[in-house]
């Protein structure tokens, strides 16, 4: 699971029927530098990615998202997503 700050949203105009309606978040991944100084979150050098969300995260939230095959686990019938929002973070303790 990686963490990232929601920096935007993506609206699909056309998509495959198996991609049911849902919210797509534009997320900038966070590393040590961003965790150490949360004001830097969202301005990291790693490329941002689009994460499927059904927890209701908004812009500015920090989320934990799961990538890979496990991102499809919660969905029945299966949906072809490779990154799913699993956690909306409330508090972070970081040394």
């Amino acid at each position, binding site marked *: 699971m990686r*963490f990232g700050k929601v920096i935007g949203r993506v609206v699909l105009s056309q998509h495959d029927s198996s991609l049911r309606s849902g919210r797509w978040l534009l997320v900038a991944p966070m*590393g040590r*530098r961003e965790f150490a100084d949360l004001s830097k979150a969202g301005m990291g050098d790693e490329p941002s990615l689009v994460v499927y969300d059904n927890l209701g995260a908004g812009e500015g939230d920090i989320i934990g998202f799961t990538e890979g095959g496990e991102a499809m686990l*919660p969905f029945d019938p299966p949906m072809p997503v490779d990154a799913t929002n699993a956690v*909306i973070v*409330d508090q972070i*303790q970081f*040394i």
Partner: protein
Amino acid sequence: MVIARIVGNVTAAAAHPGLKAARLLLCELLDDAGNGTGRIIGAGDWLGAGIGNTVLVDADGDACQVFLKDPKTPLRNVVAAIVDSRNYAGGARK
């Protein structure tokens, strides 16, 4: 499995039901010499690892199913072991 050091933890405001009871720890991946690489991953913890511990994180979802009660939980990293000590090319590293 990858070697990582626990550098914090995270509490969830909202989460997938399967993750509700899980302890989520922030783990920084270590390089061979034991220094942090800056890459932070979140891992579920059922072993009680504490901040500062060096742990083995399993990066495969199927392995997580052993720990999880809900097979539909989207989690791929789990703290599989807590490292006591390790040797690396001539000399112990903590």
